[in-house]
Structures are given as structure tokens and as C-alpha cells.
């Protein structure tokens, strides 16, 4: 996604591309066909704001955005920790663990939902029942968004110059100080990229949440399911309107995360 591409901002003296017009044109064309055109068509179809402003809709939208932010933040911490373990530690079965991280991507999300329901539902073998609650919702979203932060942070951490850390240590910095002042600034842009991806995925997730959440209006009904309901009852305009609103808010948040990333990068060098 675009989020990754500008994780490496053009340096002040960046080499000019030989044919900037051509590459910009091709990129714009591609983005237009794949992203902008469908979105424009969506906005065109949107009508009937009642579908967005009624209490059930606002509850679903608020829940979706709120829980997606929580999911993104939890991922920021947990994903970084996993990436750290995978890069810096050596242990038996590391390859397997590394491969496990990507599994949530390969699993059809409805299967993921079913698995989580069996494991953390009323018949839970570990005696944890979070079905039909927001905890269940959170759990299923954490499951499907796990790889994002791990995979964006991992390569940056891998490339990180260990000499800097050694130097910091030799100058008397403790491990925490070294992490906060040396390592974190370098990987923060990557963390933010992963956070943005995880957030976007959580906003749109459908399959994984439906079984465990129970789809209860005002409680566990997320925007994607609310919108699906609108389409199923023949209100395509309302569905498009709700989609446009949630896309608009998500876009704003993604822009904010992007701005934050650029700010971090600039003030680090």
C-alpha cells in the first residue's frame, strides 16, 4: 500500500527521476483505476443520510472506529515486541514462529471467526467465553491484524546498526534509555506504517468478527455488518453513504498517522 512507500521520504537532495512525468502518470493512472474510480463511483451512489445519522448507524460507526484504534495501538506494542524477538533472539523453532505470524493472512476470515468461537465461545476448552461481547470483537480483530506491525518493523530492526547501541551502552546509557533514544526513533516510522495498515484492516473486517460478535445492534454490530444489512435490504444508497463516511474518517486518520510518521522521521535525523 501507499503507506509503505512514503515510509522512506525523499531526502532533501534526492536524485531526480529521469522521466518524472512518465512515472507519476503511470502511478496516477494505476491508482485511479484500482482505487479512485471505485471510490468515486461509491460517492456517486451515496444518498440517504438517514442511513448514517440514525442511532444504530452512529453506534456502529463509533464502535468500529474506536475498536480499530484500540486494535492498532495494541498491535503497535505487541507487534514490535514480536518483531524484536524474531530479529534479536535466537531460539529453537524460530522459523516456525516466524511463519506463524503470517497465518492469519492465509486463513479465510470466516474460518478464523469459527476457530475463535470454538476456542473462546461458550464451549471453550480453556474456559474463556468472550462470544457476543466486545472482547470477542477485539480478539478477532487482533487475530487478523497481527502480521502488519510485525512485518513492517522486522526488516527495519534487522537493518539497524548495532554499533550505535554499543556506543550508547559504552557511554553509560541503560537498556531502557538505549531503546527509547536510539532504537525507538529508528523503528517508529515503521511502527506507524504497520499501525495504519492494521487500523485500515480492522475498519473493514467482516468475516472474522461476525460469528464471535453475534452482530447485536448497539453492542457488537460493526460498520461493515451494518452496511451489509443496508445492502441486503435494498438500501444501496444508504450503504454507500455509510461507507463514504467511514472511508472519509479513516482517510483523515491515515493522513494524520502519515503526517506523524513524516514528523518523526524528520526530527530524528
Amino acid at each position, binding site marked *: 500500500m501507499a503507506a509503505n512507500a512514503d515510509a522512506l521520504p525523499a531526502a532533501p537532495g534526492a536524485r531526480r527521476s529521469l522521466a518524472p512525468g512518465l512515472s507519476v502518470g503511470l502511478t496516477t493512472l494505476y491508482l485511479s483505476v484500482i482505487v479512485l474510480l471505485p471510490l468515486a463511483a461509491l460517492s456517486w451512489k451515496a444518498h440517504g443520510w438517514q442511513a448514517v445519522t440514525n442511532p444504530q448507524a452512529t453506534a456502529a460507526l463509533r464502535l468500529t472506529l474506536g475498536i480499530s484504534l484500540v486494535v492498532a495501538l495494541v498491535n503497535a506494542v505487541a507487534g514490535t515486541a514480536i518483531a524484536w524477538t524474531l530479529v534479536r533472539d535466537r531460539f529453537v523453532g524460530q522459523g516456525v514462529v516466524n511463519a506463524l505470524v503470517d497465518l492469519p493472512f492465509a486463513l479465510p476470515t470466516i474460518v478464523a471467526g469459527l476457530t475463535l468461537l470454538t476456542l473462546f*465461545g461458550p464451549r471453550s476448552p480453556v474456559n474463556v467465553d468472550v462470544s457476543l461481547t466486545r472482547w470477542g470483537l477485539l480478539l478477532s480483530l487482533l487475530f487478523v491484524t497481527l502480521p502488519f506491525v510485525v512485518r513492517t518493523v522486522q526488516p527495519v530492526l534487522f537493518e539497524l546498526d548495532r554499533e550505535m547501541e554499543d556506543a550508547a551502552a559504552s557511554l553509560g546509557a541503560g537498556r531502557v534509555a538505549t531503546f527509547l533514544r536510539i532504537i525507538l526513533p529508528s523503528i517508529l516510522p515503521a511502527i506507524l506504517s504497520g499501525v495504519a495498515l492494521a487500523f485500515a484492516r480492522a475498519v473493514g473486517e467482516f468475516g472474522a468478527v461476525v*460469528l464471535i460478535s453475534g452482530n447485536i445492534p448497539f453492542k457488537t454490530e460493526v460498520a461493515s455488518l451494518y452496511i451489509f444489512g443496508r445492502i441486503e435490504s435494498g438500501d444501496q444508497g444508504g450503504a454507500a453513504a455509510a461507507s463514504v463516511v467511514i472511508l472519509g474518517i479513516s482517510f483523515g486518520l491515515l493522513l494524520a498517522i502519515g503526517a506523524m510518521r513524516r514528523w518523526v522521521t524528520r526530527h530524528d535525523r
Partner: protein
Amino acid sequence: MRQISLALLMVLFLPALATGASKDTKLTLVAYSTPKEAYGQLISAFQKTGAGNGVSFSQSYGASGEQSRAVAAGLDADIVAFSLEPDITSLVQKKLVSPSWNKDRYRGMVTRSVVVFVVRDGNPKKLKTWADLVKPGVQVITPNPFTSGGARWNVMAAYGGALRAGKTPKQAVDYLGKLWKNVIAQPTSAREGLTAFLNGRGDVFLAYENEAIFAQKKGQPVQFVIPKATILIENPIAVTSTSKDKTQANAFLKFLRTPSAQKIFAQNGYRPVVKSAARGFNFPVRPQLFTIKYVGGWAKVEKKFFDPRSGVMAKIQGSSGG
């Protein structure tokens, strides 16, 4: 060389010549998902008949409303089979199905079923009537009527059940509100609902008899109760007006209404529309059974109950959060 290619040509065309008049045709069946297994068996049975000889099928299954919208949006189809009539009516409005599609002795229907209570083995909460479902502490699962067209049968069964119990239409709407207070989960489809129920959620799952039979056949520890007053579900089928092979498509529809085809439906848990095919199966009769007409017919019901903005169900769902 020339002789060889001539021989090859002969070999290629011989089968076509042998089948004579019935040229190879391919029919596209677009249907809702639950009767998938039944249609698989029915198609092979049809191909063994004279009319079905040389007719091949491409089949597509999915949620009824979704399939209907796909056809409306241009998905190629010769035959459409849906869970409920409004999904065909919308195609009639788009001139994709002839307005006279239901002018046959089966009124366009091909299978029937009834709405039942799927309960835990032994029916521990003793749920028998619609009134039992609104008792405090009873947990009900039904698919969401706004995402599952089929769930609309459940709502209308509950509403009509209340009418049958002597309530006025207004009281029956109040009953729906009470019932929805006991609904703990509204999955998007019937199969999802069944999955949630089989995973231990809820005391009763509102479903069609054929789904309940399906679950029992799979060895699930459930039983089902047919309430005294419940709705007769009728599933429509039609040939599209865009079909290029209407003769074969109509032949298939005719075949589906033969006793032997209806028996295959019955084996899959559906109540046949041809009475003689029900012989040998256990489909209990209920004295207070009613059809969609009893509650006003689909056209009225869709508007009154399921309009996403002003319908009764939209209001009930919109108020459940307080």
C-alpha cells in the same frame, strides 16, 4: 493426413449426431445456498431422463438476496431459484423474469418448509409455543432479517403465530419487540446462526425445518419443535426471460415437479409441493399453519416490516439500544 483429420472430425462430431435433436446445451442455475446438495442430485437425475439428455449445468449458489441482485446486475442465468418470492419479484420488475412466472399450478413454487424451533437435546427449557420464547431468560438466536432474506420467514412466523394466538396486529408487533429483547445474537445467515447455536449459544434457534433436519443428519445433538402455529415457507423458481434455452430450462422445471424429483427434495428435508412425494416421509401437519398471505402477502410485508428506514423491524432494532 487428410484422412486422419477427417476421421478425427468424425469422432468429434459423432456424439453430437448420436444425441440427435437435443443439441448440447448448458443451463446456468443461480440459486440460494441451502438446496445445493439437493440440486446436485436432481441435476444428475435430470440428465438421465430423455429431456435432460445432453444438457449440462453450471451452478452458482449464495445468499438469496445477493444472488437476485447479481442476476439483476447482469449475471447470466437461465434458471433462478430463491428462498423467497420478493427476490424473484425484483427480477420481474427489471423485466428479467416474465410477469406470468407464477401462473402455474404450483404458483411458481418448487419446495416448501416450515419455521421451527431448534432446541437443545431434550428441550430443557420446554419451548413449545411462540409465547414461551418471550419468557424471561430464554435466549433466542435468529439471523438478522436485514441481512438474511430467509430470516424474514422467522419474523413473519412469529408475527403470524401471535395473530393466531388471538392478538391484534398491534399487539403482535409488540410481541415482536418482546421477542427481540430475548434475541442474543443476529448472525448474517442461517448457516452462521446454526454454527453459533451448535457452538453452545442460546436456548432456541429459529430455523427452517429443512435446516433442522440437515443438522440432525449431521449428527448434531439437537432436536426441533414445530410450533402449533407456524408459517408455511414456499421457495420459488423461475426461468429467466433472457434465457437462450428456454425449452430445456422449462423441461428442468417440469422435471423438478415430478414425484421422483420431489422425493429427492424430501430426502433433503424439504416438504414437497407434489403431495404424493411426501408419502413415506415424516412431515407433521400443523392445524394452525398459515401462509404469507395470512399476514398480508410479501408486497405489504416487505414495506411494513422490512423497510430499512421505517419498517417495524428497523424500529425494533433501532430501539433495542435504548
